[in-house]
């Protein structure tokens, strides 16, 4: 369960996030949808404790990201924008490195990594160095790395950007499976269709504020637009009018 309450964040003159509040629940996929520069990545970085909000609070399963960063980080797995693998390590080693850093037991690590490799179906390239990986292979490995300590909450920053149809599909299946296991998945994107296909709840943000937070049908209803793209554009326009 991820709860964000009235966070603000500025970088010099730029007021990137202005009083954002929302909650992402366990067993649900919440989509953070917004155009480029809306404040999605900043919000996710606050949740990963990489940035400190100027005002407001955020908690991960009750752990405050500012005052109790270590506990908060223990409860999240994060897939940042761009996979950030170590090119000279194999996929297996990349995953095992995070397992060790998260403090998994020595004997447990090999089994856990093997389990992840099976779940993600990356066995055929698990022992190759990450240097030559395709975009899809990199994303899957990075996701495996994020899941290795079995976090209750998963934060994905534009995970499907640049993936082909097959890779996108298998990623979606995985996310759906995690949801079924009771995970809280928070997922950012700037593609409405993508979010609509996967998410139970959608937060549309623009200019650092929440435009609408509702289900897909709810958004259609409140914007009065049947077409999702139209609805997205309308929602953003609503913020600008304020």
């Amino acid at each position, binding site marked *: 369960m991820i709860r964000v309450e009235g966070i603000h964040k500025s970088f010099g003159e730029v007021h990137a996030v202005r009083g954002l509040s929302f909650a992402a629940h366990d067993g649900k996929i919440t989509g953070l949808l917004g155009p480029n520069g809306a404040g999605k990545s900043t919000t996710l*970085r606050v949740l990963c404790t*990489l940035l400190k909000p100027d005002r407001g609070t955020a908690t991960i399963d009750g752990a405050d990201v500012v005052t109790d960063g270590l506990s908060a980080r*223990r409860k999240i797995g994060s897939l*940042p924008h761009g996979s950030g693998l170590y*090119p*000279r390590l194999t996929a297996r080693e990349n995953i095992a490195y995070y397992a060790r850093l*998260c403090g998994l037991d020595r004997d447990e690590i090999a089994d856990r990594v093997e389990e992840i490799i099976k779940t993600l179906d990356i066995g055929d390239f698990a022992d190759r160095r990450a240097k030559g990986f395709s975009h899809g292979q990199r994303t899957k490995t990075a996701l495996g790395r994020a899941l290795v*300590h079995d976090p209750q909450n998963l934060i994905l920053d534009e995970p499907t950007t640049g993936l082909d149809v097959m890779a996108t599909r298998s990623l979606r299946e995985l996310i759906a499976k995690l949801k079924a296991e009771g995970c809280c998945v928070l997922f950012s994107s700037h593609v409405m269709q993508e979010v609509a296909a996967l998410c139970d709840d959608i937060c549309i943000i623009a200019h650092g504020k929440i435009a609408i937070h509702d289900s897909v049908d709810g958004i259609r209803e409140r914007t009065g637009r049947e077409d999702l793209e139209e609805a997205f554009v309308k929602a953003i326009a609503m913020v600008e009018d304020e």
Partner: protein
Amino acid sequence: MRAFLVVFMKEIIDNLRDRRSLLTALLGMPIAFPVLFVVLISFQIERNIDSAEELIELPVIGAEHAPNLMRYLESRNIDIVAGPADGAAAAEAVQAGEQDVVLLIPGDFSEELADMIPATVELYLDQANTSGGADIGRVRDALFGYNQTLAGIRLSARGVNPMLLRPLNIDHIDVSTPSGRAAILLGMLSYFFLFALLMGGMYLAIDATAGERERGSLEPLLSLPVTRAHLIVGKIAATCVFMSTALALCLLSFFFSLQFMPFEQLGMTPNFSLIVAFAAFLLLCPFALVSAALMTLFASFTKSYKEAQTWLGVGVLIPTMPILFVSILQVQPRFEFMFIPPLSQHLILVDMISNEPVSILNIAISVVSTLALGAILTWVCVRLYHREALLG
């Protein structure tokens, strides 16, 4: 396993796989430095021996006017060869660097000599020419010698004691011991060791900080339930290991290559036994912590791998500054210097190599002050890693 050990192991393995950087850092420097050093010393030896004994050639214009002088010069191991056409040509040749020195004897030399007026000889030389200095000096000395000899003959012919012309007798007494002289030359060694150490860890320091940020792997790493202090300490420790390894290789290769150096010919007895090499390793190891932390600190400020490389290229000079200052200003070693790394290491090393007694207190101060500085720098790095700007 503790998190910093995990980071440490990963950085070691990761960088061992970076073959090309590894070759430059661990093999390139330790091999290139001894070669450079041996060449430098051989050159030095050659020059010292040459200038004392070897026949030098002296172009002379108008040698036929002064046969006695020519014989005298030849007796001083100076070979007379035909010079350029005239004074102007000689000046040109010296200016162009074709000749170090040319002697011109005017046609009226023997007449002036017979008439007892000072007979002029012209010596063409370039004061700015440093490499020909030894040759010029020898020709000058020989001419003064001839001058003295002639004056002596003239005075004796008139029944005057030639000693009257020498109120002063200047004796040069060289008090530098052979080992002391060696120390000046071997003082360079500590530079080589320091550079090998610095270069050995530079790639890792950059890769683990600026490189990590550029690859985008820093963000997920910092999102893990690990404190940043653990990450930094692990990275600095790995850098230290690479630096110490490069240092050990450099010391070993120097130990072997110095076996082949003809130090006796220079009158030197440097002490670079295996024990001294090992002591030097232990003495310099604490400095690896200072260097690793300093490089990590530098690389944390930079925005990219390339920028870090540029900065560190200059940055590696900073640790050697204290040594340079003391050498250039020729400050006498003082007790307080033992608190300044790597100056303390340099001074102790020079003493060890030149067989001087080394005080245990100095070693203790050097080690403790260096480790303290390293700890402070590491702490600064940890503070820096808490900045948000770190992510770039």
